[in-house]
């Protein structure tokens, strides 16, 4: 067996092992990997998510047992200090030697610390490893306890902005200090940088460009930055993120050829000046360049693997693409090809919209035939398409500005036309180098027939994820071209979609999940189809979630929302957000009695957090005794109908929005549906209830109410669309009954109304035909079904506390009365919160 030694266990070092393991020849090699950090390789690209609650384990590239399972000897916290090329051995810091046949240098880089006087002061950090982040976090806590909050990040590049975001996440005031006159100077032009700066400043960060730091002020600990221009910035902490330096010390010492400014020279086979030694990632100097992006690093890993195994003669391409697409501090930024080119052979087309914070630039060859590069800030949704056009040198449309302004002729064609028109070698996933041919081929050769299969088999979309929409389009189009039906079946247990199953259950009158599974499904069911059948039966028979408890989604089983540490939240219904002072005092007393974290929700009610499973029934008993009932905040059902104060008090109000909101909430409370439903009622067009962001929204106008449907907030906000104008209360209820029931009958699982309308052939006009003109002859049925549900409403928490059998569910242990002893709470602004995920 040949011995492979890998020095470095970062993203690229890991990728090398992963690609090698996938090779058929892997079992002919014995692998030893050395990492200087105490943990397994982790995703450094998403390091700032560490402060947003991700754990080191979440960021890890592999499972804890992956190395062992693949027989790879992983040495963490072990530094290789010597390479003996004659003997072909490496030695660690303790002098232990290991021999190799092939040596892979994947030592990566370290943070570049510019030679500014004072960088050794306390409170100055670099931003590179999880340990750095932990040290920054500890120091930030100390500062905050002393009432200090000012922190600067030196470097306004990609990494610097990431670091600034991390500092902000820690609750400090972040200042970005950049030497160049603009942010991300390698990727953005001045216009793009200005837009990015405006966006991130609106989020509370401060940007200082064209600032050269002379020295760091402070006696022992940092107190500020003194700039060369005589001005200064008073800060209590500094995070340096001003670039990288290859970790080439050990390689240089053994005499491998290195570049003048660092990095180990490699050829296009990733070989160094020694035939048995390869260098990959940020330590490798290729074409006299260090590539600080993960995608080229992965390509290098792949080349090195194929060179060693000799399976295919894969060479590193000459021109490495440095295109990037990412989200920085909530702002989409992308840059591709020659983004900054300013030569005379190029026409730049720029679109700038300061109102919506969007900047787009494309560089077109003078003859108008080629896209050479571009910049997108604020909206990078066109990145995939533009990148493909650039990368495959596709012919441009007659008016190249359509590429960033959109096709304005109204025929709705996409930028790219049909994804299937791309050439087979078009690279779709640049993180994992997956071509269109590989994606379509995986389906055509029969090895995959779903999106999930294709992703796990080709790894497309597993890096930054930006290409996923395009991968999905390709998969769907390929399946279609092969005559395979792209069927939206529920899961492996049912070959039906939700609407078909709804009809089956209703027609056959099934009352038990097993009946449905035995007659129309296969296997033993799962977490997708069980709650789905429960929801269908609830919609047909007005069941509460206490019916057939084993098929209820976990939250429905315990009639509460599970929260981060496995405790629950409690939300009593407060219809329309109207509450008497007496009842508000009751809520306060209950929160105090059980020591619950208490917060007002977006739906105008009160949410209690941190209730243990065993406390839920006691809390609810207290609430119900005082006239409250379940708020169904845990269910896929009606949540709230939010209201503004309306004409009862408001001097602008056109109608009684609170009264109507209460009536609607009382009518539809407990209604089980494919997804949650929210409503809103506003007393005038000022729309203080934000009713148009809801699944149904009612707004008072001259002569009645306007009824809007199918809006939502969330990740893809959408305004509700107008269903009917100037109608009275009874008509609103009539149309709402029909609309909601039609949605419940026909939507896909977990499909909100907006998405449902989006997929409904004919859209809002068709919905009007069904609900108002009754073209399907359905409305009588829909109204009868809804009235049955309304008449049979029961509060499931009242049901629960009156039933001993149900109460048994709420013990943490089946064999002990003790509560879970694993819970740890920490203080937060006079209340409590769960301990952070480690």
């Amino acid at each position, binding site marked *: 067996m040949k011995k492979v030694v890998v020095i470095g266990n970062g993203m690229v070092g890991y990728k090398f092992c992963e690609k090698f393991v996938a090779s058929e020849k892997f079992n002919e090699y014995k692998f030893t990997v050395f990492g200087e950090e105490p943990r397994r390789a982790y995703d450094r690209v998403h390091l700032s998510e560490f402060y947003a609650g991700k754990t080191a384990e979440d960021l890890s590239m592999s499972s804890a047992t992956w190395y062992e399972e693949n027989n790879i000897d992983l040495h963490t916290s072990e530094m290789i200090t010597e390479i003996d090329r004659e003997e072909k051995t490496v030695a660690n810091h303790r002098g232990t030697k290991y021999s190799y046949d092939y040596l892979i240098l994947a030592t990566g880089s370290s943070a570049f610390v510019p030679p500014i006087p004072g960088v050794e002061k306390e409170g100055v950090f670099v931003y590179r490893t999880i340990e750095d982040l932990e040290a920054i976090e500890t120091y930030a806590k100390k500062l905050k306890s002393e009432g200090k909050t000012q922190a600067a990040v030196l470097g306004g590049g990609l990494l610097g902005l990431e670091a600034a975001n991390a500092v902000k996440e820690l609750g400090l005031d972040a200042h970005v200090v950049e030497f160049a006159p603009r942010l991300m100077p390698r990727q953005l032009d001045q216009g793009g940088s200005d837009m990015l700066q405006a966006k991130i400043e609106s989020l509370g960060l401060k940007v200082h460009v064209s600032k050269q730091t002379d020295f760091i002020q402070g006696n022992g600990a940092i107190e500020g930055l003194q700039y060369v221009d005589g001005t200064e910035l008073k800060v209590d902490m500094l995070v340096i993120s001003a670039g990288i330096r290859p970790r080439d010390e050990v390689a240089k010492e053994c005499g491998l050829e290195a570049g003048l400014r660092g990095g180990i020279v490699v050829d296009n086979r990733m070989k160094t000046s020694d035939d048995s030694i390869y260098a990959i990632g940020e330590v490798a100097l290729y074409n006299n360049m260090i590539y600080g992006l993960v995608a080229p690093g992965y390509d290098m890993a792949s080349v090195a693997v194929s060179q060693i195994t000799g399976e295919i003669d894969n060479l590193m391409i000459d021109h490495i693409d440095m295109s990037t697409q990412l989200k920085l501090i909530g702002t989409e930024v992308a840059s591709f090809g020659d983004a900054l080119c300013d030569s005379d052979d190029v026409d730049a087309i720029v679109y700038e919209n300061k109102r919506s914070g969007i900047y787009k630039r494309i560089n077109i060859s003078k003859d108008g035939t080629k896209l050479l590069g571009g910049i997108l800030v604020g909206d990078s949704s066109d990145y995939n398409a533009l990148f493909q056009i650039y990368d495959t040198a596709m012919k441009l449309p007659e008016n190249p500005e359509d590429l960033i302004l959109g096709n304005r002729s109204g025929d709705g064609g996409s930028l790219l036309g049909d994804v299937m028109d791309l050439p087979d070698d078009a690279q779709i996933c640049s993180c994992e180098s997956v071509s269109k041919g590989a994606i379509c081929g995986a389906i055509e050769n029969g090895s995959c027939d779903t999106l999930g299969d294709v992703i796990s088999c080709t790894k497309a979309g597993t890096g930054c994820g930006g290409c996923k929409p395009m991968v999905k389009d390709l998969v769907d189009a390929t399946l279609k071209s092969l005559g395979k039906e792209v069927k939206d079946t529920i899961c492996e247990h049912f070959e039906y979609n939700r609407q078909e199953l709804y009809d089956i259950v209703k027609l056959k009158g099934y009352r038990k999940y097993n009946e449905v599974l035995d007659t129309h499904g296969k296997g033993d069911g799962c977490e997708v189809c069980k709650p789905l059948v429960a929801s269908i039966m609830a919609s047909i028979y007005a069941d509460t979630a206490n019916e057939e408890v084993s098929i209820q989604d976990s939250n429905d*089983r315990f009639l509460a929302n599970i929260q*981060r540490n496995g405790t629950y939240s409690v939300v009593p219904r407060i219809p329309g957000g109207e509450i008497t002072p007496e009842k508000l005092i009751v809520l306060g007393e209950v929160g105090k009695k059980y020591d619950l974290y208490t917060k007002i929700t977006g739906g105008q009610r009160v949410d209690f957090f941190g209730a243990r499973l065993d406390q839920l029934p006691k809390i609810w008993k207290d609430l119900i005794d005082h006239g409250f009932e379940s708020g169904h905040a845990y269910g896929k059902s009606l949540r709230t109908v939010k209201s503004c104060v309306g004409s009862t008090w408001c001097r602008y109000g056109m109608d009684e929005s609170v009264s109507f909101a209460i009536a609607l909430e009382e009518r539809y409370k407990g209604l089980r549906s494919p997804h949650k439903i929210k409503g809103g009622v506003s007393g005038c067009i000022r729309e203080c209830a934000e009713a148009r962001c809801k699944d149904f929204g009612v707004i008072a106008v001259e002569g009645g109410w306007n009824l809007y449907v199918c809006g939502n907030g969330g990740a893809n906000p959408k305004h509700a669309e107008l269903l009917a104008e100037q109608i009275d209360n009874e008509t609103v209820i009539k149309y709402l009954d029909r609309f909601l029931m039609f949605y419940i009958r026909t939507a896909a699982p977990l499909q909100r109304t907006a998405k449902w309308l989006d997929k409904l052939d004919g859209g809002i006009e068709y919905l009007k035909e069904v609900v108002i003109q009754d073209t399907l002859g359905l409305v009588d049925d829909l109204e009868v079904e809804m009235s049955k549900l309304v008449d049979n409403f029961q509060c499931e928490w009242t049901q629960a506390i009156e039933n001993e059998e149900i109460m048994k569910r709420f013990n943490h242990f*089946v064999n002990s009365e003790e509560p879970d002893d694993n819970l740890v709470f920490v203080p937060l602004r006079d209340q409590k919160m769960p301990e952070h995920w480690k």
Partner: protein
Amino acid sequence: MEEILEIYKTITAEDVKIWFKAAKVSDFPKSGGACVKYKEKQIAVFNFERKNTWYACQNVCPHKMEMVLSRGMTGDQNGIPKVACPMHKKTFSLENGKNLNGDLAPIATYPVKIEDDIVYVGFSE
């Protein structure tokens, strides 16, 4: 936090030295799970009624280290009995503990036997 995982190691029927008497069969939900306390351990025990089989595993989900798997929903993936964590729907084989929809570390599983309507869980110590 990872040290929580240290105390959970898969026990096969051959490893069993102690059959811990957990509770009556009727104390467990049908087609669902409940949590058994054994010394400092929390064990999720499932009555998989459709297969007429009982399974047991650690209660802690290795994803976020919360004691919640007993509150998860059971089912199967291509015939493999599984439990889905209620927090983020990570699924694990109840036969060998493998993470079926990701590459989390496998969970520890424990043997279960039923005698005279009493549920016993097997431990080595």
